[in-house]
């Protein structure tokens, strides 16, 4: 511990912390903008300047380590004036169209002006010439960028993708791709983590709200909506709730009030995914153990950001991916076949909207692989943030809504489906079903939670040995199954490199593209801090434990779907509607240059 004085108060802090962190630990707030706890420490905005006795100039407190005997003053006329001037300088190159900006009242720059007590904008000069770049998932409006570089940190250090970096120099500096290439021509995974950390309106999801209103307004369209597992534990944050609240029932009601004809639950096809993916896994293992051809480890394929990453970075390893489509495209495919047949409408007259915690899903639905008979499985994807905006726009008093249920036949789900929204969840859900299928016994873990793969660590692993399996699975007797789970693309890279070197010890790997899984997806409410992520995680497990139905194979509507329509897991119909293939892409390009 080291001792220093901040604003006349003697404090002790661990060695290595910055002045800003030392102050925070002692309940002293130093205004700051570009700094992002645990993620980004760069010192680009300089708003956190403080006076340090003996130092010639003001010091950026987010960068300077606290030292023994230091005397720091955070609240002096000099620091207050400097912060205001620095703020006004940022403002001099920022459009002042706040009232019509989508970040109005959720903008960190705007909030900082309030905190600093800024009442004038004295500097007027040249404005940077920002370009608007619209990709299927992410829209970049660089005229609003304040060069904080948080997006660079998440894109490079956290996600290991590296499509964004500072280009040019001085006033010409712009955060962008190499040679200003459009985002849809480079190796962006569309994870959208940059849109979560952007403090202003420079990085955001590509808007689908008007397309969805148009579909709802169209009397000839049957408009179907579905919501992903991670929405119900997060959307409350944009509608006045504290993080960690589960609002499933009100969400179903709100969707009906918005005018959707059918309110389905992506959880239903999460359960279905477990049956399809579990069957695929057992088939691969059987082939491997009985001398046939099989690629192991098998890796989950629910996360389209992860899929795009692996297509760019490890195009020779695509055989490891499960061929299962992601759950929401499965639901779209079933809505436009199984359900359309039931209600006797032409699939072309149906419009499927997915509400997702994800920006990459916006791109995913535009892939040619995600169509059947020339009709896209899903027509539009809204992020959690976009749905919250629609609810506000419609004047719905969300807090006072009654609870309701999702519609059947695509609305019932098990707790196993709920945990698809969190890292480790897909694996746990699969193990609950596969273990029971193979042994006839319940997965031997407390409350069915595979504890070693629960939590927010980057790479987690578990193993268990199969004993006394049922007759049909005798080939598995005594086999120790090894699984790994990772979230965030840096962890995925580590596991893929093992595979590329032929050193992977695993049979089954779960990868989610965003750190923590879909609970902190690129389409979730801002901010997503470590505390908020933890609260959403706990909420998801609460939702799971609160259900009677905990295992995917016990979902009676899934059973009925097989009886009436699909016939058997991994069967002909499943392959046509629920499975897909992947595309090799260039390391830095959308497609490989021939």
């Amino acid at each position, binding site marked *: 511990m080291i001792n220093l004085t901040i604003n006349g108060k003697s404090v002790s802090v661990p060695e290595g912390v910055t002045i800003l962190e030392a102050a925070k630990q002692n309940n002293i707030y130093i205004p700051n903008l570009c700094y992002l706890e645990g993620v980004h420490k760069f010192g680009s905005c300089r708003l956190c300047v403080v006076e340090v006795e003996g130092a010639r100039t003001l010091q950026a407190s987010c960068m300077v380590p606290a030292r023994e005997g230091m005397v720091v003053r955070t609240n002096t006329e000099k620091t207050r004036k400097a912060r205001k001037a620095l703020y006004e300088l940022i403002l001099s190159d920022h459009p002042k169209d706040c009232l019509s900006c989508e970040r109005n009242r959720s903008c960190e720059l705007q909030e900082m002006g309030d905190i600093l007590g800024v009442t004038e904008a004295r500097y007027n000069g040249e404005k940077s010439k920002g370009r608007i770049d619209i990709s299927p998932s992410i829209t970049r409006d660089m005229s609003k960028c304040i060069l904080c570089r948080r997006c660079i940190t998440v894109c490079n250090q956290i996600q290991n993708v590296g499509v*964004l*970096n500072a*280009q040019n120099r001085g006033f010409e500096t712009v955060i962008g791709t*190499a*040679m200003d290439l459009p985002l849809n021509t*480079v190796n962006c995974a569309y994870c959208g983590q940059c849109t979560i950390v952007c403090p202003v309106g420079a990085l955001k999801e590509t808007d689908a709200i008007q397309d969805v209103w148009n579909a709802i307004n169209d009397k000839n369209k049957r408009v179907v909506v579905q919501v992903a597992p991670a929405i119900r534990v997060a959307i409350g944050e944009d509608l006045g709730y504290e993080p960690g609240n589960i609002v499933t029932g009100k969400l179903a009601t709100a969707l009906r009030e918005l005018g959707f004809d059918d309110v389905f639950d992506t959880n239903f096809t999460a359960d279905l995914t477990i049956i399809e993916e579990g069957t695929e896994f057992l088939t691969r293992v059987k082939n491997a153990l009985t001398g046939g051809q099989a690629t192991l480890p098998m890796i989950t394929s629910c996360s389209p950001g992860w899929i795009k990453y692996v297509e760019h970075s490890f195009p020779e390893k695509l055989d490891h991916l499960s061929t299962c489509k992601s759950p929401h495209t499965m639901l779209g495919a079933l809505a436009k076949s199984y359900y359309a047949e039931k209600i006797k409408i032409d699939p072309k007259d149906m419009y499927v909207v997915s509400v997702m915690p994800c920006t990459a899903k916006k791109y995913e639905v535009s892939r040619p692989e995600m169509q059947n008979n020339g009709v896209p499985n899903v027509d539009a994807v809204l992020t959690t943030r976009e749905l919250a905006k629609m609810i506000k726009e419609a004047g719905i008093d969300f807090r006072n809504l009654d609870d309701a249920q999702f519609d059947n036949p695509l609305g019932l789900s098990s707790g196993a489906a709920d945990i698809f929204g969190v890292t480790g969840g897909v694996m746990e859900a699969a193990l609950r079903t596969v273990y029971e299928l193979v042994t006839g016994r319940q997965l031997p873990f407390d409350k069915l939670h595979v504890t070693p793969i629960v939590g927010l660590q980057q790479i987690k692993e578990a193993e268990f040995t199969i004993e006394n399996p049922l007759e049909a699975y005798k080939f598995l007797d005594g086999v120790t199954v090894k699984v790994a789970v990772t979230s965030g693309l840096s962890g995925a890279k580590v596991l893929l490199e093992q595979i590329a070197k032929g050193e992977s010890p695993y049979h089954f790997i779960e990868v989610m593209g965003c750190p923590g899984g879909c609970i902190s997806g690129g389409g979730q409410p801002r901010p997503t801090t470590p505390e908020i992520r933890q609260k959403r995680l706990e909420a998801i497990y609460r939702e799971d434990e609160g259900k009677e139905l905990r295992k995917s194979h016990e979902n009676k509507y899934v059973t009925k779907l097989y009886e009436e329509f699909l016939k058997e897991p991994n069967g002909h119909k499943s392959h046509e509607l629920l499975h897909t293939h992947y595309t090799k892409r260039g390391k*830095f390009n959308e497609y490989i240059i021939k």
Partner: protein
Amino acid sequence: MSSEALSCQCCCDEESDQQKYQRIAEIIEKYKNREGSLIQVLHLSQSIYGYLPLELQIFIADHMDKPLSEVSGVITFYSFFSTQPRGKHTIRVCMGTACYVRGGKKLIDRLEGILGVSVGSTTEDKKFTFEIARCIGACGLAPAMMIDDVVFKQVNPDKLESILAKY
């Protein structure tokens, strides 16, 4: 400067693109595991290839195992690096404070007329690339300009044509 860059000066013109890429690959192999070596690699690559087009940036990023946006970021940060083909000779007119005050702007205007291109461009015959420099450290000789490594002092605009004729 290391020997790779020097040795290239004499053989650039006869070398095929494939040979140039081969030599750049060898340089990268030598430097790739040294921290902070990207600038050196770019510097040598430009001296071999003449400039750093996107295809070459992709080649370097791939072989250095770095993001393409980082490579491009470094290239666009330093004015020494060029992403456009360059002329045989580079004219740099100093626009530092002293040269500016002593008539640097007049040199620019006159050169634009003589060369038929604006600042930042290369002449059609690929003979000259025309640029501005921010103080070349010859303030006492203002207005100054450089052609390649040679400094011309107290340049009289009327003498420009005869200077260029030597190249």
